[in-house]
């Protein structure tokens, strides 16, 4: 299951993007294809297995048809398409996967998962890779996204229900984006789109769930 190989990455390589910089655009050197040059085994197999374990998805059934990439609304902005990302997971290219921009730009729209002829939950794989990257504390290539996730969870732990104004302030301070959307934020305030005060109802129950799930994850 793990460590399987698919077709060439070349077919879905985005043009002029950072795939080159990451060394993923295949170049045949002395008759050796990049895949032959890759050392598949040991650590790379362990990475593939870890992704499969966290996601519950068998990535090796992907036959690289490219359908997930063609429907993806954000692949134009990423470094890898979803198809390439799945291939990289199959090959166990841990660093390329965990450092990619695409894993953070994914909007979780589920188009890839829905259309895959092999029933690969591509969005589920990307979500698992996000979790692995955060646990391994790999410095994220789009840091605002995991920051936003973390801040949202602390917001729930504090207030039980989302306190949007508090979340936005917290996010802006920690991501140092004080000025972006300031005008929009104040128009939203005037339109009554933010509650000025948080509610604490449900916060005790939410904290209990967060505490218990952390305890289980520490021991497993």
């Amino acid at each position, binding site marked *: 299951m793990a460590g399987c190989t698919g077709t060439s990455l070349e077919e879905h390589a985005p043009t002029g993007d950072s795939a080159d910089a990451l060394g993923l655009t295949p170049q045949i050197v002395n008759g050796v294809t990049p895949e032959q040059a890759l050392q598949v085994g040991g650590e790379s197999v362990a990475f593939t297995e870890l992704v499969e374990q*966290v996601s*519950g998805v068998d990535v090796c059934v992907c036959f690289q048809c490219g359908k997930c990439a063609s429907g993806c*609304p*954000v692949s134009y*902005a990423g470094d890898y398409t979803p198809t390439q990302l799945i291939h990289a997971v199959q090959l166990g290219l841990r660093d390329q996967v965990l450092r990619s921009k695409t894993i953070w*730009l994914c*909007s*979780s*729209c*589920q*188009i890839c*998962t*829905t259309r895959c002829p092999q029933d690969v*939950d591509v*969005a589920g794989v990307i*979500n*698992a890779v*996000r*979790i692995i990257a*955060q646990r391994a504390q790999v410095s994220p290539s*789009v840091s*605002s*996204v*995991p920051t*936003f*996730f*973390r801040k*949202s*969870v602390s917001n*729930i732990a504090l207030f*039980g*229900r*989302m306190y*949007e104004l508090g979340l*936005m302030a917290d*996010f802006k301070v920690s991501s140092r984006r004080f000025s*972006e*959307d300031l005008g*929009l934020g104040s*128009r*939203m305030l005037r*339109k*009554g*789109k*933010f*509650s000025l005060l948080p*509610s604490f*109802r*449900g*916060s005790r*129950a*939410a904290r209990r*769930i*967060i505490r*218990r*799930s*952390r305890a*289980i*994850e520490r021991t*497993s």
Partner: protein
Amino acid sequence: MHSATAREYERSLLAVARVVGLELAEVENWHCCGSGAAHSVSRLLGTALPLDNLVSTRRMGLDEVVVPCPSCFSRFKSALHEVENEPELRTQVEEIVEGDYRAEILHPLQVFSRPSMLAAIANARKQTFADLKVVCYYGCLLTRPPKVARFDDVEYPQSMDDVLRAAGVQTLDWSCKTACCGASLTVTRKDIVVKLCHDIFQAAKDVGADAIAVACPLCQLNLDTREEEVEHEYEESYQLPILYFTQLIAMAFGLSPGDVMLRKHFVVPDLKLAEVTAGA
């Protein structure tokens, strides 16, 4: 439903439910299901948060939950799907939540598009919208992935069109019913969001729509607040109001634009309402 961002959705939804005889109670002591964030930090947390709310629902003696936000709807349904299919996850979740969590998750569109409800909606009409052509935007998570959502056609859903037509609103066919507006990136990657929203506005304009009807607070907020930037960036004028489908139905039932808080929107619609004439 929580949050000041969607008060007009809540208010219009409750008004419509009252008229068609749908009884709704708020889940006691509910907390956020973490949709859009918790699941990407920990799958266990992202599953336990929504299921704990379902335990509270079952404690109230109820087993059907109407979830108006598709992002939450999808999180609840995915959580149930995941524990059903992954025994290890189920064991861990059951160590966290105390009690039975099995319940049916419904989006309001699912309830209102039942034949009896469509008839009730048609019967309760008091006002019509003159010259208003609407496209229905369902977004990502109401129908995707179909194994989880189990609702309507995955690529070309029809339920919102059916419900609005029953209320006397003219809806148009178009190509972006289930496109992604990028709402989950609106805080973090505005540039991508502006492009995705542009594609949706342009498709709506191309078919001659006057407004976009939505069934999601995140889509509403994202499309509505980014419209001005899209117009600026692409040098186009759209002026398409983004209306909750429940606001349109509530107005068809006789509520005023003020009752359904149309002024809370960024692009404020100028709707012309007329009384339904006998036989119309």
